[in-house]
């Protein structure tokens, strides 16, 4: 009799599993994952393959292109194939590209060339400045000095 009572009491006094640390870990995981998914929405920018033959090859494959607008990213600024020189200001570049687009509304393509030291971040900003006026971006190998 007394043995059975002791067993029941022992069962009643059995400690509950400590789930608070696990809760903390789960909360932290939720926070980290939520933070990462909210701050890193990854998108893409489509570009065309660079042509080793240069601008001549581009003209040969697409004869309807009239302008073949080239943007050269220099150390000090931007040089456009129409001869204009701009300071390194993305708003000024955008304004100039809007002006060119107004003159050549059929034109959709822009070819990028850059100084070899130009960083990718800067190239992305130039592509952003060219959009949506010029959707097709192509790269041309070669060094602009």
């Amino acid at each position, binding site marked *: 009799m007394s043995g059975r009572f002791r067993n029941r009491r022992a069962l009643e006094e059995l400690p509950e599993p400590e789930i608070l640390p696990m809760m903390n870990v789960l909360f932290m995981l*939720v926070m980290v994952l939520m933070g990462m998914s909210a701050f890193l929405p990854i*998108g893409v920018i489509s570009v065309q393959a660079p042509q080793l033959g240069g601008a001549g090859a581009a003209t040969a494959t697409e004869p309807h292109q009239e302008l073949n607008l080239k943007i050269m990213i220099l150390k000090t600024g931007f040089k456009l194939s129409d001869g204009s020189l701009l300071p390194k200001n993305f708003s000024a570049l955008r304004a100039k590209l809007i002006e060119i687009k107004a003159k050549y509304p059929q034109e959709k393509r822009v070819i990028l060339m850059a100084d070899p030291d130009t960083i990718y971040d800067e190239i992305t900003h130039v592509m952003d400045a060219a959009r949506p006026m010029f959707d097709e971006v192509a790269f041309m190998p070669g060094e602009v000095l």
Partner: protein
Amino acid sequence: MIRRRRRRQEEKPYALSLTSLMDIVTNILVYTIKIFAVSPIVIQDPSVELPHSTTKENAEESVVVMLTGIRAADKGMPSIVVDGKVVEWIDKETYRVPEAAKNNGYVIKKLKQELLAIKKNQKQSAGLIKDSGFTGRIVIVADKNTPYRVLVDVLVTCGDAGFGNFEFAVVKQEA
């Protein structure tokens, strides 16, 4: 006797049950992981910091060529990684692909070799698996400090291997 037992029960401290809260947190965790897994491009290298862009295009699953940053773990050298495998190292001092590793001044030999193998696999799987095959699409995931000379080498190599639809991975931001 009964009164005394009741009083003893009332005096017992009430244990807070966390089980239901645990269920909620687990559900949120599963949901978050599911959302997180939707993105086809996963960047695990802490040395790769993507540039920000106003693009509206979303990433789709395709071959990923990654250009890691200078803080990469292995030897502290930046590298070219294809689908998680390092194929070529970039010189840390000059931040250039070594000339010996290239053909024609642009085509990175090992990268081309790797891409041709992937292209062959994709073409072989075209007849076996539905909605598969060679699309020529390639995603370039590059650290924002990667210089133009390395970027062009990689682009020319990809184009030479038959991958002509490039997509640059960026972090979307509002215009």
